[in-house]
């Protein structure tokens, strides 16, 4: 039973990824993806750029899907080999999927390079750029903090008495998910810097802006895994830490932290919707092009 449910989950995820991979073969789907991205990032999809954007998005979708499938397979193999329990099994599969997706997306940005074939006018940015030029502070900073907190809280699970009611759900799931969150954060920090360090050959400012758009969206995809995994790990480890307190104190702490946590999540979600973080790079790097469309 502990293994069967994660395996059903694996099957569903793999099927979704395969359908998505098949859709990348359909020209109409690829064109729609490009138009959808243009609307999201707030840039005009000029015909001279459309083919380039479509090619890059397709490559990203395919390498991301392949990475996700490999991560899924690796997670599944570990679930089958080890006796990890339901929670750990499900999140190992989930973590493998997202980390694999992040590595695939990062690889697609590293592979893709559209160099002009002949000498031509070239434009480049005159200052150095970093991750914080592409990712909004309210996304990047909380992610880094959550990963550190998850890694710091995970050992608390080892202190929970072995006969505690919650232990089967927490161990080894919470420390394992914290470990996956750290791995995903490494993919973001190392892979993300590698993506940014890649040359961005462009003949016009519009091409450079689109290059930034593609990089920003790739980095935001890579951010999903550490954010989600760290959040889950903190909740589990937090429950573990609560069991170490006397029951009456634990209930009070839980009564305070849960509403605060839920409110915080709602505030962050609303902020994300209102501030349109997918256009952060545009407002930050291309204020002239950013319009309230």
């Amino acid at each position, binding site marked *: 039973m502990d293994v069967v449910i994660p395996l059903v989950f694996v099957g569903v995820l793999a099927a979704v990824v395969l359908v998505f991979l098949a859709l990348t073969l359909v020209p109409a789907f690829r064109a729609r993806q490009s138009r959808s991205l243009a609307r999201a990032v707030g840039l005009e999809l000029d015909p001279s750029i459309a083919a380039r954007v479509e090619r890059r998005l397709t490559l990203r979708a395919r390498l991301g899907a392949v990475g996700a499938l490999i991560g899924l397979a690796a997670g599944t193999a570990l679930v089958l080999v080890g006796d990890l329990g339901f929670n750990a099994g499900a999140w190992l599969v989930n973590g493998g999927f997202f980390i694999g997706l992040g590595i695939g997306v990062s690889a697609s940005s590293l592979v893709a390079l559209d160099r002009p074939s002949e000498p031509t006018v070239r434009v*480049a940015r*005159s200052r*150095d750029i970093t991750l914080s030029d592409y990712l909004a502070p309210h996304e990047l900073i909380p992610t880094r903090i959550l990963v550190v907190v998850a890694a710091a809280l995970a050992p608390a699970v080892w202190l929970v008495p072995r006969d505690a009611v919650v232990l089967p759900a927490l161990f080894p799931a919470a420390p394992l998910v914290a470990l996956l969150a750290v791995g995903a954060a490494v993919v973001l920090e190392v892979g993300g810097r590698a993506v940014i360090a890649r040359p961005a*050959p462009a003949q016009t400012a519009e091409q450079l802006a689109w290059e930034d758009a593609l990089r920003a969206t790739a980095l935001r995809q890579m951010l999903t895994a550490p954010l989600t995994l760290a959040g889950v790990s903190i909740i589990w480890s937090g429950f573990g830490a609560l069991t170490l307190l006397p029951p009456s104190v634990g209930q009070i702490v839980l009564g305070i932290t849960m509403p605060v946590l839920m409110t915080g999540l709602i505030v962050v979600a609303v902020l994300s919707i209102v501030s349109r973080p997918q256009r952060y790079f545009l407002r930050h790097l*291309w204020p002239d092009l950013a319009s309230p469309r």
Partner: protein
Amino acid sequence: MTLLTIDPGSATPPYEQLRAQVLAQIQSGELSAGVRLPTVRRLADDLGLAPNTVARTYRELEQAGVVETRGRNGTFVALSPDAAARGAQEAAVAFVARLRALGIPETEARDYLDAAWQS
């Protein structure tokens, strides 16, 4: 947005196009003191130039005192436009004083300056 444009068809050498644009952005305040410039390799790749061309530009800007290299941390904008102008004025005064000491007339000194500018 602080952009650099290199036109391979221009009569002006690429390193001079690059130097003039970086200097203009620093003097106009678009690139402020402390801002890190792209690495030589990155800028060369982006602009389709040889790394030596970009390195030469950075070297000349560093000699002019407008950028500074901080070891492996990279190249940074060093001075405010006023300070750069002061540095240029000091260099000009030193140049004239040296040529006067050598007994070089003004017209010949200008020829040397033009030749150095073109090299």
